[in-house]
């Protein structure tokens, strides 16, 4: 068995692999950045409708999955991407790596949760919303008031108490920066970050880490996203999830068919499912805003009407200005060799 596994790659000639894949048509390689705890549940729901299609997940953080997909461009391994940031899928679309397909019921999706082309290259699933994780025990120790706005975070009282993701390595970090620039305007946005920077203890490489660190008391405040904060609070972490009143940056978890898949029929079935009402109900367990309007029920520890707090995010603008924004950010805040204490 084990030797077979090791050398199967060597032995299986290219033609043979292609033949078996076409014949079986029952396995899909799905690249994803969904939270690990959701994977089994999602696959199970999908298999209720399509017991004949087995999903082989390849899961990693958004950055790694995106890098892997782009690096495999010449010979894609994934059949479907299900659960990756829309910004990443925009990059893939521009590289011509996606196969446009309009899933059944695509018209039911809210317009901002789909690619604008007539036959969309990707569809949105649910919204990934910014949020602040606030550790109440540590805050009490340091005598920190609970912030209610982004502006609050620049107050001197928070100096050295805030952790946020580095936009150069984290999608969540970029989402924050892009949202501030869109909400406050470019000039004021950078002014805001200048002030915020003096309060930042350190920048992390991942978007969920600031919230986990806040939950563990490494810092009282972590700029992160709502899903993580709500999950951790539910598990008993001494956290309050704060949704700043100016508005919330967000991205989508999205899905698309990768061009060159061996099994278009099965891939389409998965896309149909991903856009379905059942799937939207399924996403709603962890995410308060999902693609089909009216489906979502309130999720514990989210604000009452999260959709109203979400900014009018211009993904095209973010994508077009991404390198420039990151370069500017790096020049301003990343060149300092030491963290401010």
């Amino acid at each position: 068995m084990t030797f077979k596994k090791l050398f199967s790659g060597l032995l299986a000639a290219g033609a043979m692999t292609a033949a078996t894949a076409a014949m079986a048509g029952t396995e899909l390689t799905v690249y994803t950045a969904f939270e690990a705890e959701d994977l089994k549940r999602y696959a199970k729901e999908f298999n209720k409708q399509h017991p004949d299609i087995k999903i082989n997940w390849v899961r990693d953080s958004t950055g790694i999955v995106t890098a892997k997909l782009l690096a495999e461009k010449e010979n894609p391994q994934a059949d479907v991407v299900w659960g990756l940031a829309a910004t990443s899928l925009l990059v893939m679309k521009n590289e011509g790596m996606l196969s446009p397909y309009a899933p059944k019921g695509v018209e039911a999706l809210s317009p901002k949760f789909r690619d604008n082309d007539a036959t969309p290259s990707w569809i949105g699933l649910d919204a990934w919303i910014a949020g602040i994780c606030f550790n109440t025990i540590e805050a009490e120790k340091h005598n920190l008031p609970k912030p209610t706005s982004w502006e609050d975070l620049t107050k001197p009282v928070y100096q050295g108490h805030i952790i946020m993701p580095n936009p150069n390595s984290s999608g969540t970090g970029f989402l924050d920066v892009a949202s501030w620039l869109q909400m406050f305007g470019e000039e004021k946005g950078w002014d805001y970050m200048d002030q915020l920077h003096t309060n930042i203890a350190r920048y992390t490489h991942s978007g969920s880490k600031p919230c986990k660190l806040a939950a563990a008391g490494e810092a009282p405040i972590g700029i992160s996203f709502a899903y993580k904060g709500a999950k951790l609070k539910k598990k008993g972490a001494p956290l309050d999830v704060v949704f700043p009143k100016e508005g919330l940056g967000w991205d989508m978890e999205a899905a698309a068919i990768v061009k060159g898949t061996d099994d278009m029929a099965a891939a389409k079935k998965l896309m149909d499912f991903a856009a379905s009402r059942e799937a939207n109900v399924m996403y709603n367990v962890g995410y308060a805003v999902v693609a089909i309007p009216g489906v979502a029920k309130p999720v514990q520890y989210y604000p009452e009407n999260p959709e109203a707090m979400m900014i009018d995010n211009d993904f095209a603008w973010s994508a077009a200005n991404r390198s420039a924004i990151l370069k500017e950010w790096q020049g301003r805040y990343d060149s300092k060799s030491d963290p401010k204490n």
Partner: protein
Amino acid sequence: MSVALSPPGFLAKNRLGKLGLDRGLQIAGVVIGILFLVVTMVLPLYAILSKSVENKDGDFVGWTNYLEYASNPSLLNSITNSFTIAIITTVIVISLALMTAYALTRTCMPFKGVVRVLVMGPIFAPSLLPAISLVYLFGNQGVLKSWLMGESVYGPIGIVISLAFWCFPHAVMIITTALSNTDARLYESARALRTSPIRTFFTVTLPSIKYGLISASFVVFTLVITDFGAPKVIGGQYNVLATDIYKQVIGQQNFQMGAVVSVILFLPAILAFTVDRWVQRKQVSLLTARAEPLVPKKNPLKDNVMLLLCLPVIITIIGVLGMAVYASLVTFWPYNLELSFNNYQFDLMDGGGWEAYYNSLEMGLYTALFGTAIIFTNAYLVEKVPGINGLRTLLHLGAMIPLAVPGLVLGLAYIFFFNSPSNPLNSLYGTLAILVICTIAHYYTVCHLTAVTALKQIDSEFEAVSASLKVPFYVTFWRVTLPVCLPALLDIFIYLYVNAMNTVSAVVFLYSSNTMLASVAVLNMDDAGDIAPAAAMGVLLMFTCIGIKLLHWGMSHLLLERTQRWRNRSAT
């Protein structure tokens, strides 16, 4: 480019005539060795490094990317940071490792067996584990936070401590090998001449292990400069080259700029190779056919002083690893200190669950088996085959490359190379085999250096005598070289096994849905902020590796008893 140990030219020529088949086999071996390195290392690297002179669409753009790099002060700053960290860490590690290796090989220090096990401790865990442990020790909620006197552990302090900790066994391994192969007669002469012990240390001991020391220094230096795990976990705002690659490739999917940073990371390796060649030329073989193995004599004062000196090292190792074990058992740090196995329920968490752990076990076994065979054979060909200096130098040069290649770069390189539709090997992609090959290639250099150091200390007279007796070289290899080098072989085996279990950066791009690995799970869990489960998986890996090591010791004990008795000749 002459190799110091090759026998005089006329002898080689002489043999060439008499042993045609032998010669053919040797040359074929060297060529196969070179081909192996070309396919697993050189071509993949070319695939990624050529990206440093291309734009996004793959057009050649010359130095544009480099100029862009040079115009970015924060990226340039990373070069200084990387070198600072690497130099400080190397100095710390080499001094401590020399002291420890000396105590282990040249004294009758009490508890030597225990110390020998403990100093290898850090190698049994992923590089992320000491960094995670330091967070628990010195982080804002750390139990020993006050020890840093207000300094933050997130930054150079944290990186240096974690990496020094993690590199320590690597250095001890190389220096111990160098110290254990020596000729006791040198020390007898020194004693007869009434040379003071300190003078003996500087005039006999140090020169005899110079080669090992320098190798160890460069190994540590490059390990530090290319590691991205520790700086990622505990580096704070202190940017280094390896995390810059991470940011460029993972954060921004800018492969071109990632390639530029990779090229810059190669420079230390080229330096390492040059110095290695230069020193090797001056190396004199100490273990001649007439050598007497050195057996340390009891000296209570010296033995106890050495134990005392080793104590801080031992305590640090126990402390850091112990903290990781403790942290993995705490239910919810720091608010619920009850002990439980909650963090070990891997199937409920990110990272592939227990399946990943079993995959790691399997991958480790194959890597160790095939890796040891391939690397030792190649090292033998480099060291002991007469003539064909050009080819052998090429093989040795190839063997030095992997050390300089950061895992992230290697992993990406493998995607570009092996997943290319025009590559006949592309069906390897996504299999366990590619993980095995990648890991062998990634850890090639230290094993190669260990093998070379061991081989170098066997007098080439053995080969010369066999040849004149018309014994084919492979018989000499099997009957003399292999048994003599058995300790080094076993070290290489175990080194490959534990590294395969703990490797992260290269394989993170190469695993597929059914070849998920436990070490990658550690990285993913830490990345997601699940630090306690990450520590738990790291601890599990560590105990597994220690278990395997103990098993290996038990089994090899008999083997060594039988084959290494000659080393204890004077003692019995």
